[in-house]
């Protein structure tokens, strides 16, 4: 739990620095998978799939959790993501991106379908959701201010910020997940940072 909070502070610091400076540094992009690895996945090699699951399931779970806000659903949908990946690996085209970006793209769609099917498109979660029972310090004021600011900007821009800073994807990976171009991601990101700076109403310093 402590590690997770520290991780949160890390992304928060990075984001606040970017808002303050207006400069968004790209996260280092991971290397794409080795050809032999992809080939073994496409062959249905169980050990390769176990390796992929062990390496990526936690990040996928965290991403899905953030989209659904429910641990049980996140667990269920995470498994669905890998089952979908199994079905779709034959159509995977290696473009030098890590498999995580491809899995995030699947996760985004599966989680979206899940929400539409089971939660309704306009499921509402109160800001009270931030008040975590028994851990009033889990979300500190700075984060709360940032959340309010993020919540007030364009959803597409907010999602870009989420993928880039909260989930740590690089520009090109984020572009792959969103189905857009790197320039498109850069544009949304810059506008989002500017809007956040205006919303926060101050020169944010870390």
């Amino acid at each position, binding site marked *: 739990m402590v590690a997770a909070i520290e991780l949160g502070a890390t992304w928060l610091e990075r984001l606040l620095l970017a808002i303050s400076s207006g400069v968004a540094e790209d996260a280092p992009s991971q290397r794409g998978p080795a050809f032999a690895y992809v080939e073994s996945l496409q062959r249905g090699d169980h050990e390769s799939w176990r390796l992929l699951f062990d390496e990526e399931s936690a990040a996928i779970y*965290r991403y899905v*959790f953030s989209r659904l806000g429910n641990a049980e659903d996140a667990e269920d949908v995470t498994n669905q993501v890998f089952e979908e990946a199994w079905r779709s690996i034959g159509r995977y085209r290696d473009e030098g991106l890590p498999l995580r970006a491809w899995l995030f*793209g699947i996760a985004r769609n599966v989680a979206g379908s899940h929400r539409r099917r089971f939660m309704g*498109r306009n499921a509402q*979660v109160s800001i009270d959701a931030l008040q975590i029972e028994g851990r009033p310090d*889990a979300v500190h004021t700075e984060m709360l201010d940032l959340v309010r600011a993020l919540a007030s900007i364009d959803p597409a821009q907010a999602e870009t910020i*989420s993928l880039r800073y909260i989930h740590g994807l690089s520009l090109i990976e984020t572009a792959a997940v969103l189905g857009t171009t790197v320039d498109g991601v*850069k544009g949304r990101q810059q506008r989002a940072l500017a809007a956040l700076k205006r919303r926060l109403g101050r020169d944010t310093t870390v």
Partner: protein
Amino acid sequence: MNVNQPDDMTPNLAALAREVAALPFAWPDAATRSRMRSRFEDALAAKTVAKHGWLGRGFLIAAALLALGASAAAASASRSPMDLVRDPGGVVRDIIGKPQPQQPTPSSAPAVAPSATPDDDHGGDDDDRRGRDDGPDDNSGPGSGDDGPDDNSGPGSGDDGPDDNSGPGSGDDGPDDNSGPGGSGGSGSGGGDD
């Protein structure tokens, strides 16, 4: 669905509140990891059968037939006049110690009850109660038919075209227009605000 518009992010406070609220708890704990891994293993095992399609099913059917043949042979070997024999008329009669010159030969007698006969129609592989094609189809193998409403395999695989965010000068794409239903992608006309 416009890929410029996040598929499920409600404007807007709720979505981000949920996003950040999840953070302290977001990494799966050991129990969650274990459950997910177990379910994944089950899926792998199931997919393996599905992956081999008819070949795998044929193998399973052949194996079942061999097993049934072996059990029938064992049953006939141990058959004694004290056994109950089901005659062709369906009447069960007790054969008690008397030689039966017209006793059905093992080959003509059903080896097992009809309800347990193997499928011969290439149907499901796990429900043999009626001996018919009553198994649920598994369309999850590669090249199989459609098995779900959504194709979630590709990023942004919604029902519209991709963004055109590659306008000249990488001038971003202007403010995203997320208001229109089923919009046709980003405006992509340059003229960013930076």
